[in-house]
């Protein structure tokens, strides 16, 4: 056994085996010198770029590249040449006989005794995948727009009827009309959420970052939710210190709060909701926010699925599903976009759940990084237009 293993190992590490493996790899692989001049290109390079090896040996990848803004390549070179770190990202390139394609690209420096002796670059053609993604989100965007038009008319006409625009209405009709109005509002909410998902997934959601008092915002939100919480006989309580200054998009944070407290109100039939905040030792740049309810709780099996798209936890325990199943999914994406996160802290059936989310504190390194990140994304977007 040992003998056989040694034999195989000898074949594998043998030069020709290495070369054969690289030559026949499905991924496009090139090896360059420290200036980026191509020394070697495998078979897949021709398949993706349509250039034969002899057409590109001695030249740089700019032969099929050069489709991105100049600033992009500057940053790329800074990373692989000065920082000597691998680059990974999506790059638009051009095939020999025209036609752009999108490549998932990784370029790694080859270091020998810490001296740069060249690069290895790999590409995966993800054009088709990208097209499908785009079609999917275009579809959502068009469908949502088309849904909104009749919804506008339904909602508008009902509110006019209720306002007496068509004359006094019978008392018996007012109540079912209000039900229709509520249903229309729910549908509009769903359509707006669908559009939000497609916006986030396309990187088209805009973030306006400011420095603000999280405590003040929290109090404001609780006040706005008072009519609902009073009606449901649930007390929303603040526990401990909450006057943290954070760096985030205020309206997006409001959305997260509304979603989490809204869920807590929806699934708790009594008791109270407690909001608390704290800083943690392992990451001093973040503040953690907790929303704890004494509701029906979430079964362990369902906890896994909570943050999936369109996921609705619907069993006898929870009764009829409500909402679109997009709330937590969107909230988590938004929190992550703002350099934080969102999670289920703990939950026990019939005892209640605690959700947590985190945001960057203002003036911290994380908040500065976030600012740069959002800015560079906005720049990249305007470049592509």
């Amino acid at each position, binding site marked *: 056994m040992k003998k056989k293993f040694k034999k195989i190992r000898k074949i594998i590490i043998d030069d020709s085996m290495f070369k054969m493996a690289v030559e026949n790899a499905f991924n496009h692989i090139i090896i360059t010198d420290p200036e980026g001049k191509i020394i070697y290109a495998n078979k897949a390079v021709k398949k993706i770029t349509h250039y034969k090896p002899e057409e590109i040996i001695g030249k740089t990848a700019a032969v099929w590249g050069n489709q991105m803004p100049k600033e992009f390549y500057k940053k790329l070179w800074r990373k692989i040449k000065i920082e000597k770190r691998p680059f990974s990202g999506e790059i638009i390139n051009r095939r020999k006989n025209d036609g752009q394609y999108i490549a998932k690209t990784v370029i790694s420096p080859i270091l020998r005794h810490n001296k740069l002796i060249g690069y290895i670059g790999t590409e995966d053609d993800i054009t088709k995948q990208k097209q499908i993604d785009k079609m999917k989100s275009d579809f959502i*965007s068009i469908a949502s*727009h088309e849904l*909104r*038009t*009749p*919804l*506008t*008319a339904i*909602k*508008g*006409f009902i*509110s*006019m009827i209720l*306002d007496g*625009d*068509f004359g006094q209405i019978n008392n018996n009709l007012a109540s079912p009309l209000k039900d229709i109005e509520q249903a229309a509002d729910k549908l*509009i909410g769903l*359509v*707006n959420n669908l*559009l939000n998902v497609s*916006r986030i997934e396309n990187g*088209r959601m*805009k973030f306006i970052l400011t420095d603000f008092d999280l405590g003040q915002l929290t109090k404001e939100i609780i006040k706005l939710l008072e009519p609902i919480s009073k009606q449901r006989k649930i007390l929303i309580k603040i526990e401990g210190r909450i006057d943290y200054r954070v760096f985030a998009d205020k309206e997006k944070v409001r959305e997260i709060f509304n979603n989490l407290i809204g869920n807590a109100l929806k699934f708790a039939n009594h008791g109270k909701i407690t909001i608390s905040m704290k800083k943690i030792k392992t990451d001093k740049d973040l503040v953690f926010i907790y929303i704890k309810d004494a509701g029906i709780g979430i079964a362990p099996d369902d906890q896994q699925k909570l943050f999936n798209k369109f996921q609705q936890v619907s069993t006898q325990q929870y009764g009829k599903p409500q909402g679109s199943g997009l709330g937590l999914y969107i909230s988590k994406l938004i929190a992550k976009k703002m350099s934080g996160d969102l999670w289920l802290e703990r939950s026990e059936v019939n005892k209640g759940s605690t959700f947590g989310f985190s945001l960057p504190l203002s003036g911290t390194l994380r908040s500065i990084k976030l600012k740069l990140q959002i800015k560079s994304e906005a720049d990249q977007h305007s470049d592509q*237009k």
Partner: protein
Amino acid sequence: MKKILVVDDDNNIIKMYLIILKNSGYEPLYAINGKQGLEMALQNHPDLIFLDLAMPVMDGMTVLKKLREDTWGKNVPVIILTNYDTDDKLISEIQKTKPSYYLLKTNITPNEIINKIEELLKIENK
């Protein structure tokens, strides 16, 4: 009586706006596509225009641009009432051709629209 022109390709929406405008004491006019809307605007000189964006024959942004090239049309207040999610580029384009305003149809009730009209006509009359 102030004249208000509604340009929209959806029958229900036109009907709805015509009723609220009439009930609130305005004289409503309507057109079912951009080209017709532009012609009616230049002919009837309404005091305010409701303009949809996605329309057959001529889209709303083209109507807006052509209106602003006209001596009368460059000052008429226009409310873009759409269900399209406009991006920043489109919003800044709309703002360039003031006085124009952007409202998302689903987010606004007929009553709020009337309030908005009154507010705008007051500003424009100053």
